[in-house]
């Protein structure tokens, strides 16, 4: 495409080389004003402009086809069809085809519109004046006068009794809205201090739902337990398990460093709350050699051989221990509830 084929009348006039030169003598940094417009090929060559037009129309047409493809995909592919597409792997055929066709239908409208704007619409820069945001002094004076007149006519300044009682009424009325929120929930009272554990409650294995016996717990294994009588379909199961979840390990009694922990254990079997004392995630990672447990959420680490004290991470205090023993049937049982609240610290915890 050589420029000889472009009609002479379409070519830009020579740029004024001396543009701004007058001012430059006085101030070399002076603003020379907007640079002259530089024409694009489409501005001077009608064939280039027509090529652009065809490109835009092509994109819009492809978009239409993509939408038809979207509808076709919706009808053709069953919702559960899985296909292999490199490099994505096995994906849902429907999700992939719907997403690609919808995406293309939209994207091509976008590219078409932008190409149209960039190649065919005028790209001559125009300057628009700004006006100060602040009002002119006369406008301000008028507003102030209007306000003064309005205030005077209402007599709000003179009749103080009206003004003050109105403020009082307006200040009080939102209280109704606050009061209405009261029944969002119960008061805390002692709810966070107790769990389902009580004297004589058997420890039930979370996986098998069978009562746990001391011989089930071997050194090096981590067992999760919940109190007997708590059924998974109970309406408050989630709320109860959120406090009562227990983890049980066996440590050689001689290896238990904390004296109280040894006393509350049964033959080296210790039961601790599974709920992290940081912000309440369930602890699930257990290191057999060191008897450390780790909360996977924020990495608080507790030493279960030393009263479950915190050895790393953001937790503020040790995991509460549940005192356990064995009942007449040879099953593990609780000897009472936790002596302190389980889970995260709170103001009334003490």
């Amino acid at each position, binding site marked *: 495409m050589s420029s000889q084929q472009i009609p002479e009348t379409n070519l830009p006039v020579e740029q004024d080389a001396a543009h701004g030169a007058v001012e*430059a003598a006085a101030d*070399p*940094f002076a*603003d*020379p004003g*907007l640079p002259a417009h530089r024409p694009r090929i489409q501005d001077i060559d009608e064939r280039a402009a027509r090529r652009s037009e065809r490109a835009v129309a092509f994109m819009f047409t492809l978009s239409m086809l993509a939408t038809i493809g979207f509808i076709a995909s*919706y009808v053709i592919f069953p*919702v*559960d069809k899985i296909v292999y597409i490199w490099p994505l792997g096995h994906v*849902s055929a*429907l*999700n*992939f085809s719907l*997403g690609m066709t919808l995406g293309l*239908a*939209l*994207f*091509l409208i*976008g590219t078409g519109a*932008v190409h*149209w704007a*960039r190649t065919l*619409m005028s790209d*001559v*820069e*125009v*300057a*628009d*004046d*700004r006006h100060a945001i602040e009002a002119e002094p006369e406008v301000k004076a008028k507003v102030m006068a209007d306000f003064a007149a309005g205030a005077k006519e209402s007599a709000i300044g003179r009749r103080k009794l009206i003004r003050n009682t109105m403020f009082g009424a307006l200040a009080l009325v939102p209280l109704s809205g606050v009061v209405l929120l009261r029944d*969002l*929930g*119960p*008061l*805390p009272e002692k*709810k*966070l201090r107790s769990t389902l554990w009580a004297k004589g409650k058997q420890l039930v294995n979370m996986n098998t739902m069978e009562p746990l016996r001391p011989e089930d717990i071997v050194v090096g294994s981590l067992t999760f337990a919940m109190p007997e009588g708590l059924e*998974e*379909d109970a309406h408050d199961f*989630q*709320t109860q398990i*959120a406090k009562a*979840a227990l983890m049980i390990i066996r440590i050689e009694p001689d290896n238990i460093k904390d004296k109280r922990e040894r006393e509350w254990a049964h033959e080296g079997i210790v039961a601790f709350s599974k*709920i992290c004392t940081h912000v*309440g*995630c*369930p602890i699930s990672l257990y290191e057999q050699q060191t008897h450390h447990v780790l909360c*996977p959420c*924020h*990495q608080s680490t507790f030493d279960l051989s030393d009263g479950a004290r915190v050895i*790393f*991470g*953001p937790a*503020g205090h040790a995991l509460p221990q549940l005192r356990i023993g064995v009942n007449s049937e040879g099953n593990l049982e609780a000897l009472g509830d936790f002596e302190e609240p389980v*889970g*995260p*610290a*709170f*103001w*009334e915890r003490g």
Partner: protein
Amino acid sequence: MSTATETKRKAPAGERVADWADGRLGIYGLAKANMRKIFPDHWSFMLGEICLYSFIIIILTGVYLTLFFNPSMNEVVYHGSYEPMQGIRMSAAYASTLDISFDVRGGLLVRQIHHWAAIIFLAGMFVHMFRVFFTGAYRKPREINWLFGFLLFVLGMFTGFTGYSLPDDLLSGTGVRFTQGAILAMPIVGTYISMFLFGGEFPGTEIISRFYSIHILLLPGIMLGLVVAHLILVFFHKHTQFAGPGRTNKNVVGMPLLPVYMAKAGGFFFLVFGFIAILSAIATINPIWALGPYRPDQVSTGAQPDWYMGFAEGFVRVMPGWEINLWGHTLALGVLIPLVLFGVVLAALALYPFIESWITGDKREHHILDRPRNAPTRTGLGVAWVTIYFVMLIGGGNDIWATHFHLSLNAISWFVRIAFFVGPVVAFIVTRRICLGLQRRDKEKVLHGRESGTIKRLPHGEFVEIHEPLSQGQLHTLTAHEQYKPFEIGPTVDENGVERKPSAVQKLRARLSRGYYGEDNQIAKPTAEEYKEITSGHGHH
């Protein structure tokens, strides 16, 4: 009367519709001011558009999702078409999310577009906000719009959080538990707020339906209002522009809304939407089916919030577990301090424009953007803030870093603790040095011209590089910025010899002002005299 008009001429249908509307809405008046409104062109002005468009996409897809989602914590046993979950007990919310993903045709796509758009919305706001920050676009008259934008960012975070909590899956439930634990740490009111929010003890049976109304009504309602207000102010203030030939503080140079920006901005909406749709076709986001329903006694490893909550997570993870027990009460500082820092770090961003305008004392309107290098202290502070943010993102993902890069988790936590204090200081100093270096280079360029890369050998054998002088437009662009003089307290003794004590506030302002605009903290831009002296005759190499 009507017959008379009809005989004259019949206006085209479009014009008649417009006439009808104008008689009732006054649209011609509006169109006169706005139809050919000028918008300046710069790639960074697109960032805000990405946010606006992803917000619209979120609303469109969100409405669709409400048609199928069941925001209930009623326990159901799953019997849908996703085999691995057959017969498993779960909430109706989780089950309906599985249905959207596996039984509703296109449901998975819309869910993924919704989630990807949310992630892009927040990322777009973050980048847009820092575009505005680093170019000083928040200065008068745009401080209020800065606050609107800031509120949109914060509300967007919480809308995102309440949104990804709705499916009631194991991961998001863990996030809700974390939030409840953090609420409990608030002194005095913590347990009450927790009980009221959850309708009793955690997790109760209310939280999903309450989050639902917050997520689809309360927060997006406020955000929609803020978006509209944000846009009205953009129109009212007119857009900012960078300095350049013909661009002044009193004009705005660019192309008109109709047709150029109608096509460019309108087209960009389709580009953003199309991009997100394709992304959702090929990249899975939040595969809740792989996580299982929430149970408070179960957890998966590598639990991560969406990225925009990561920095709050970082504070919570790396904070030492301080706890004070006194007079029968517990102050869980280990959780409370991160909570407060979360607010303080965000508030610093909101307040910065007001702090800077107090230091400069500049009450004029600013429509010409600063290049970041020409405001070294501001740029340094911005980079310091971003450094804190990203250090905390590392802290929030410390387990991911540890497992992916085979690093010690403890070492990462300690690194983050130290970097929280040291990182922003180092970032500030380094950034400011770089800015000053760039200012020097600009000055060099103005006075000595552009390095052409052409080497000339002089008659006596010396080699010199030819410097090409800049055009007047370039000279103007590089010298158009204003430089403040530091604020001085002035003489402490007045003309009558009476001693005047400057207040502590004034002293602070003077100190800060020196820090911003003191001799060593900005490079004096070249003067016309310097330029003339060098360029007149023998100055050239």
